[in-house]
């Protein structure tokens, strides 16, 4: 072996050592230095979490009629990631053969942009069991045929705006909800109660933790949490009343389109409107209609662009998705006058029975000094003659309230803003808090509001570059609900409920309760919405006259503004108090490109002397309140009366709290050691003298320690006692409410008699 070979053998030896050194070093790195990281990776490597979506809770009306439900339907999904482009064709050819639908329709499903790009796409729905089996039998890879739950709205358009709809997640929701266990293709609530109560309705998804091998074969189930169904939401609306309100509103709008406006000489467009029915005693919303409307079923599977445009971009049904009852902002017009009247009474500027001569206009007296417009005319410049407050409301005298508002303007001191203060205390200018999304707060103008608006958008609010001062004219316009005043229909109903019930301002409830659907607690309320009293308004003395004025609005003998609409109405059986409003609308009609027609408004409650239900109707560009809105309100009121007869209210009788008497064995009944535990009022119970009362830290009447055995008392009797105390207190509260209500009614009755005598 020569020297070269020897050297090269040595080199080979070095290579061996070097390579093995490298292997060992790397092994050391992996197994000693980085081992923890890999151990974690190894654990997550073998675990899969499968999420089972829960069934969504239903939405019910107050009597249990289902407004939103789930139905089972067979769907076929395709997982795109399992194919190349050219394989699609054969798959679709097979599917279209099996399902007997054209291929183009199947391919449409793939273009669905609303679900996650990687999620399997739904290409066919509405299959029956046969169809599912036919697809499943073929076992085409990537194609799955399965049952799925689909949201359905059996009442269709009825209460659409309240119930809302479900749809695919938005981008932002997607990011937030996936962490909460939503699946990418799940539908979530997008509007109305569906949107607002999403967390309650959705339920808890089930999670199954599986240990799998490389081929995803299940080796072991590590944990299995079944899905928890979502809770039902019970609304306070009544479906039949809701349907009646919606249909009367629609009919009213259609009827208004046949009338010609005297201002412009055109037919009234009368495209949109809203109606609210509220319980004046507790703020429950019984119906809430908004026109135009839509069928939420359209939204579940989604609309194509063309469908969407034809429905929601129709210029003759603008804003069908908006719930105008809480989102529509309107000038209230004359229905605002009771607020002005109450403000005048509060400030002491109105003597309710003092005579006022309505000559058809009101001029600001010269001593006050006036710049610009100084004379304000009645609607149609009609001179109504001599009136008091009651008559001014009945016949809707503008001049009377011009004067009140003008007088208030010149008061020095806090009473200057009496109208605004009264409006705000009646709930205007802030959201009522009804459980619906996107509620508007409206606007009650004063000096600051005007200034802010002028600065915010001079071209919209200040085209003539006036100084942003609060002028007498501003207060006068505000006094009759014109100008910058903006209210929502639900605010109107709520304010009139407050006036009607003697001053209790509620936050309206449209949701009565959230009810569990879990197996162990089925039907139990998870969340209950008690009547929410926001405020108790001290109505000024003389408010009875305001109510009297309103009660005559439907009276033809006293020439009430809504008398014509209430001709032939059963006044004796179900007398209505109300107020018409005809509000000039600002701006142009977007479609017709001419000045907007007047908004017709009517707000009423019934029965007059036991106010139970308030109805508010607002119809945009529909003409006079007395001619367009009042007939709608009348028919709704008749429906309310029918509803009352359909669901007669139980007479609440006061039952004094009864102690719950335990079952005591006869032998023990005389036992003095035992008698101390029997509540007072039970046949064999006596009250132990106070000095002998054993230690009772929680004060529930049950000693902490059992005297005979010395054992600590179990929790149960204590809890039962707590429950008893709670029930007692609740009954007392209910009784107090009832007593107060009756007292208030009696008071009103007395005031009414005084006023009429």
């Amino acid at each position, binding site marked *: 072996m020569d020297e070269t070979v020897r050297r090269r053998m040595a080199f080979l030896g070095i290579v061996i050592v070097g390579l093995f050194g490298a*292997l060992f070093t790397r092994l050391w790195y992996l197994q000693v230095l980085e081992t923890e990281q890999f151990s974690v990776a*190894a654990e997550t490597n073998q675990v899969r979490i499968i999420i089972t979506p829960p069934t969504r809770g239903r939405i019910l009306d107050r009597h249990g009629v289902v407004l939103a439900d789930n139905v089972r339907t067979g769907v076929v999904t395709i997982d795109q990631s399992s194919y190349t482009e050219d394989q699609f064709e054969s798959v679709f050819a097979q599917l279209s053969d099996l399902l007997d639908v054209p291929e183009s329709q199947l391919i449409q499903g793939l273009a669905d942009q609303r679900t996650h790009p990687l999620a399997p796409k739904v290409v066919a729905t509405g299959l029956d069991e046969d169809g599912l089996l036919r697809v499943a039998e073929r076992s085409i890879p990537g194609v799955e045929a399965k049952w799925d739950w689909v949201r359905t709205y059996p009442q269709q358009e009825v209460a659409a705006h309240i119930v809302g709809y479900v749809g695919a997640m938005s981008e932002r929701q997607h990011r937030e909800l996936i962490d909460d266990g939503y699946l990418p293709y799940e539908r979530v609530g997008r509007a109305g109660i569906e949107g607002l109560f999403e967390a309650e309705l959705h339920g808890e998804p089930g999670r199954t933790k599986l240990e799998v091998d490389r081929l995803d074969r299940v080796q072991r189930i590590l944990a299995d949490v079944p899905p928890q169904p979502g809770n039902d939401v019970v609304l306070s609306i009544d479906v039949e009343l809701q349907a009646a309100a919606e249909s009367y509103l629609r009919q009213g709008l259609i009827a208004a389109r046949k009338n010609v406006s005297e201002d412009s000489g055109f037919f009234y467009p009368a495209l949109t409107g809203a109606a609210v029915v509220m319980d004046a005693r507790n703020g429950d919303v019984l119906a809430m209609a908004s026109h135009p409307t839509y069928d939420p079923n359209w939204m579940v599977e989604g609309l194509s662009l063309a469908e969407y445009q034809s429905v929601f971009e129709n210029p003759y049904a603008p804003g069908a998705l908006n719930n105008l009852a809480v989102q529509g902002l309107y000038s209230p017009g004359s229905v605002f006058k009771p607020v002005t009247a109450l403000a005048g009474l509060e400030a002491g500027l109105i003597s309710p029975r003092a005579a006022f001569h309505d000559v058809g206009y009101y001029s600001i007296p010269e001593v006050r000094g006036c710049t610009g417009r100084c004379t304000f005319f009645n609607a149609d410049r009609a001179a109504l003659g001599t009136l008091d407050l009651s008559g001014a409301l009945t016949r809707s005298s503008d001049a009377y309230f011009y004067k009140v508002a003008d007088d208030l303007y010149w008061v020095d001191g806090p009473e200057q803003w009496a109208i605004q203060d009264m409006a705000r205390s009646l709930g205007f200018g802030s959201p009522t808090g009804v459980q619906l999304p996107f509620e508007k707060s409206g606007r009650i103008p004063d000096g600051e509001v005007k200034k802010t608006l002028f600065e915010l958008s001079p071209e919209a609010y200040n085209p003539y570059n006036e100084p942003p001062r609060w002028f007498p004219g501003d207060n006068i316009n505000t006094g009759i609900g014109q100008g910058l005043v903006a209210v929502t229909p639900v605010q109107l109903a709520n304010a009139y409920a407050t006036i009607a019930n003697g001053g209790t301002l509620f936050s309206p409830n449209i949701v009565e309760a959230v009810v569990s659907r879990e197996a162990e607690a089925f039907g139990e309320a998870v969340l209950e919405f008690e009547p929410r009293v926001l405020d108790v308004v001290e109505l000024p003395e003389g408010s009875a006259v305001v109510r009297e004025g309103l009660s005559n609005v439907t009276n033809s003998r006293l020439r009430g503004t809504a008398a014509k609409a209430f001709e032939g109405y059963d006044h004796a059986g179900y007398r209505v108090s109300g107020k018409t409003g005809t509000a000039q609308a600002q701006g142009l009609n977007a479609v017709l490109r001419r000045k907007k027609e007047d908004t017709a408004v009517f707000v009423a409650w019934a029965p007059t002397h036991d106010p139970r239900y308030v109805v508010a109707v607002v119809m945009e560009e529909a003409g006079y309140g007395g001619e367009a809105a009042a007939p709608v309100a009348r028919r709704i009121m008749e429906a309310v009366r029918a509803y009352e007869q359909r669901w007669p209210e139980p007479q609440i009788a006061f039952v004094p709290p009864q102690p719950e008497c335990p079952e005591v064995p006869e032998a023990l009944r005389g036992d003095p050691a035992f008698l101390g535990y029997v509540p007072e009022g039970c046949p064999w119970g006596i009250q132990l003298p106070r000095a002998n009362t054993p230690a009772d830290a929680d004060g529930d009447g049950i000693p902490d320690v059992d005297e005979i055995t010395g054992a600590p008392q179990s929790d149960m009797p204590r809890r039962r006692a707590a429950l008893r105390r709670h029930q007692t207190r609740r009954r007392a509260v209910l009784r107090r409410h009832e007593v107060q209500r009756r007292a208030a009614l009696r008071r009103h009755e007395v005031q009414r008699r005084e006023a009429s005598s």
Partner: protein
Amino acid sequence: MIARLLNRTHTRRELRSPAWFADYSLALAAIAVACVGIAMNYAATWRSLTFDGEDPWTVARRQAIFVGVGVVVMVVAAIIDYRVLRFYATPAYLAVLVALAALLRWGPEIRNARSWFELPFFGFQVQPSEFAKLIVIVSLAAFVANHEGYLRFDTLFNAGLLLIVPMSLIYLQPDLGTMLVFVAVAMGMLLVAGAQLRHIVVITLAGILALVLIFSIDALQGPRLLNETQRNRLTAFLDQDFEPLEASYNLRQSQIAIGAGGIWGQGWKQGTQTNLDLVPEQHNDFIFTALGEEFGLIGGSVLLALYAYMLVRIWQIARSANDPFGRLTAVGVLSMLLFQVFQNVGMTIGIMPITGIPLPLMSHGGSGTVTAFAAVGIVISVGARRYSL
């Protein structure tokens, strides 16, 4: 006889039976590695076999049979005088060429490659390229032995021709890994045989250039010289954070398994990654991961030490060989084993690209195991006859 011709007396060592000088420790080390291999074959497959309702020993038993056959072959190879092999080298070389060519025409396609012949009995398969490695080593040694110490360029060129034919046939199967073994073997043998440094440099540069060309032709959408899997596997090594699909999936899974083993390992049959079959081809090319996970750094080091011991003994045998043919044969076997061990273990721990090379004596497979034993047997034969005339 030669001694008599040379007219000198025999030394004591020359008169001894070769069995006296045989390296039994090398044989024992090989058998030890093979036994570890059987144990790991069982550990890697028992769970999924049980899952499929089969006998958990199915794979391990087959491997044990291979090892048994291999040991017999090793003993026979050690007993036969290696010098006889020179005379059989040429016909064996031609036969294996015919077999490789026949494979391309009639071999069944298994896992995208025509590398196996189905045997009509027992369901065994034969992989001629494994045997080809040993036959080419012997043939090359026989060819270059005459020129040991100084290889002229024409000799080198002829040696290259001798190599290139079986390599091309194997490349066409395609079996990139085995082809690379040939390259490593040739490098080792030609280096020791005395190839001139400048020739080596030129050939290395040419090889690099060829690789670059192959990849760039591939990148330029030229004729497909590498198929999809080959390219992915080779490049996944360079880019380990690539999507965990196919090639780099294997790499990631094997590193997780080994890393999770830690110092002491999780115990035989206890490795979760191994049991859940998360590492693909685990009783085959990736058998080292099972060892790494279940016996940890300790087990891995012991195995590497056994291999190192074998290689060092082979290296010593090569140094002390009686003639250039024996030395070059031993060097060929050394290069083959070294490259295969380094490449295979290296790919499981992420320092080498993934190529389908079995871990000698460990991986499941008859042809590979028997070839490895035969190679060790030949080396023992070389070592045992280092003094014989």
